[in-house]
């Protein structure tokens, strides 16, 4: 009896009947996915590194199908290893796909407990194929390349921090909307970040902000990340003077008032900066500093106004003004009808710039 039991136990160790075993060495670890088309006719591209000597080498599988799962199964048929998305870093979506409904395309990731919620999403200009078949050599493995690409912008407060989980959260909340990195390639050279794709609910509005506008969205809506740098060219009496600075702190106060049926909102921004470029020097004199501060304030206010306008026109509340109104001015909030109010809001920014440090020269 005991011998039989021992035999059973030992032999079971050598069986490969370990139900959930997925040997890491037997899988194709997908690091980037690109999706074209929409439910009914989807085309997707799966990239994974292929060579152990040169990590920048990668293989792109493509799949076609009616549903997102079907596409993956189709791609699987073309690979010698089973494909696995647990190490996914980035998902690229064609802007046309995102315009229809992004959440429906992402459900396949949320439903599976294996998929990583920390993956980044980006919206591409045109077909995603071009973004995966890069002709230029990239410095890193492609998954890491796209991940670091987006992360560095997040560090510089250009994009708000996003990942799969945050995206789902924002697509469902009424008082704040999703903004995703928008990238573009001309076919030559590496892809470039072009701004922030504005969402309304689960759909891409088709409008994207510029990098600078996106930076203001991030600063206003999410606060400063590690760094925030800005640079302007000052046309002073016909002389072109570069004015660059980095933001030390970014403090904002909101003032909300109701004017008729409209809501009026004013951001009062206090922003100490350190100068990083100013060739005319002599920043030690207050007389010199004041006009620069004035100039910066004006430019930022102008840029912000443009940004607010763009967002309102696109009916996309990426800054999260709705959340603020709902939390602190519940009498102004109308459940389910926020976007109508938002469209007609009067949003303004008053900026107060202070040159706190001049850098290592005066």
């Amino acid at each position, binding site marked *: 009896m005991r011998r039989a039991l021992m035999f059973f136990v030992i032999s079971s160790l050598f069986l490969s009947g370990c139900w959930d075993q997925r040997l890491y060495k037997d899988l194709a670890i997908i690091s980037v996915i690109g999706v074209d088309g929409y439910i009914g006719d989807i085309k997707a591209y799966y990239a994974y590194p292929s060579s152990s000597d040169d990590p920048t080498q990668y293989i792109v599988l493509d799949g076609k199908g009616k549903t997102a799962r079907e596409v993956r199964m189709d791609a699987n048929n073309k690979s010698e290893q089973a494909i696995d998305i647990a190490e996914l870093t980035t998902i690229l979506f064609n802007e046309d796909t995102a315009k229809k409904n992004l959440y429906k395309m992402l459900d396949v990731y949320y439903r599976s407990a294996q998929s*990583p919620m920390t993956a980044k999403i980006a919206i591409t200009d045109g077909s995603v194929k071009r973004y995966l078949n890069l002709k230029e050599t990239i410095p890193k493995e492609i998954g890491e390349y796209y991940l670091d690409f987006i992360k560095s912008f997040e560090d510089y407060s250009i994009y708000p921090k996003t990942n799969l989980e945050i995206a789902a959260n924002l697509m469902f909340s009424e008082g704040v909307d999703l903004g995703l990195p928008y990238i573009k390639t001309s076919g030559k050279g590496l892809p470039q970040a072009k701004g922030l794709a504005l969402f309304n609910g689960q759909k891409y509005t088709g409008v994207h902000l510029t990098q600078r506008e996106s930076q203001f969205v991030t600063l206003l809506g999410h606060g400063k990340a590690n760094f925030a740098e800005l640079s302007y060219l000052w046309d002073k009496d016909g002389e072109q003077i570069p004015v660059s600075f980095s933001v030390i702190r970014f403090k904002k106060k909101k003032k909300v008032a109701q004017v008729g049926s409209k809501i009026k909102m004013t951001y009062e921004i206090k922003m100490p900066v350190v100068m990083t470029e100013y060739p005319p020097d002599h920043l030690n004199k207050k007389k010199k500093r004041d006009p620069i501060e004035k100039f910066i304030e004006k430019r930022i206010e102008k840029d912000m106004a443009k940004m607010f306008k763009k967002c309102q026109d696109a009916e996309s509340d990426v800054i999260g003004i709705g959340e603020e109104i709902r939390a602190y001015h519940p009498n102004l909030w109308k459940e389910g009808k926020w976007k109508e109010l938002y469209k007609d809001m009067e949003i303004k920014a008053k900026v107060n710039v202070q040159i706190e440090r001049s850098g290592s020269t005066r």
Partner: protein
Amino acid sequence: MNFTITKVQLFLMLFFRSTGIIFIGYPETIILAGGRDAWIIFFVGSLIVFFQLWIYEKLYKYFELGKFTAWIYIFIWIIVLIGSIIYMQYNLNIWVQQNTPHTISLVLMLLISFYISVSRPSTIINLPVFIIPFIFIFIIYLLFSIPELSLNHLFPIGTSTGGQWMKGTMVAMAAFTGLEGYLVLRKYVLPEDKISFKDILTFQLSITLFIGFLVIVTKMYFATDALPYVTEPILYILKSIEVTFVKRLDIFFFFLWLGWSIISFGLIVFNIRIVYFKQKRKHKIWPMAVLHLIVFIGSVGIINIQVMEFIRNHFHYFYIPTTFILPFIIMLFNRRRKSKCAEL
């Protein structure tokens, strides 16, 4: 069953018994039940439970189970055990092991619990200690989600309706399911360990802060409309936290939760053990084997989403009858009988 415990051990057991199985999914249930004010409702519910505990302390001497009431409690606890093991197994299937047969993992978990139940009492009394360091690690990692938390989700206050308050309070109190264990175990506390008002306050405060922290984090993290789609919000938050040295925190903390739950499961079994072995019994091991077999048979066939949703939607109905009404009936009944005896 001859043993004594200190008050620290008593409160540790109660802490892990109550938080054990539910804590990864609980915040969602209460937020869905209580609406926007759920976090306030939770603190109110906890206050009610605090007074209840305080009355427990005054009356615990009268909590003596007769044959009939003992079997009622054993029956209730077996139901709780079956519900817990289904919940544990279902989540195990969802989060990590899609293909492993139910029977294997159920048998393994029940074997551990069986091993605990045939060990000496001091084993289960002290097992919760091993989890304590992990609580702090767990909280520290949850704090990594701070950048994604939004204070705006907590406000405005006072929007929940009366119905939400009613249901919310019931769910809030359900976070403390298992407090009947206080009455069962209180008698074994060393007589020189006096339990003061302050001790109960500290205990209730720590358990409230722990679960309240989870509720608030969940509330601040998820958009109100996104929450109903998520089942175990705490694991979801951990899953989306980015730390550099490890990618999927949720897997580690899932197993922390599972270990925690098995210990919590063992604590319920311990309650059954105390009540059952109060009378002198001939066999020590067989009853425990039978108990685990009942739990196994009771759970193995019905691990599916329908049962899961039933458990999720109804577990809070357990609290008031088992932890509130029944003990008070028993205590008041025994008290009257005792005072009558004194008169005679």
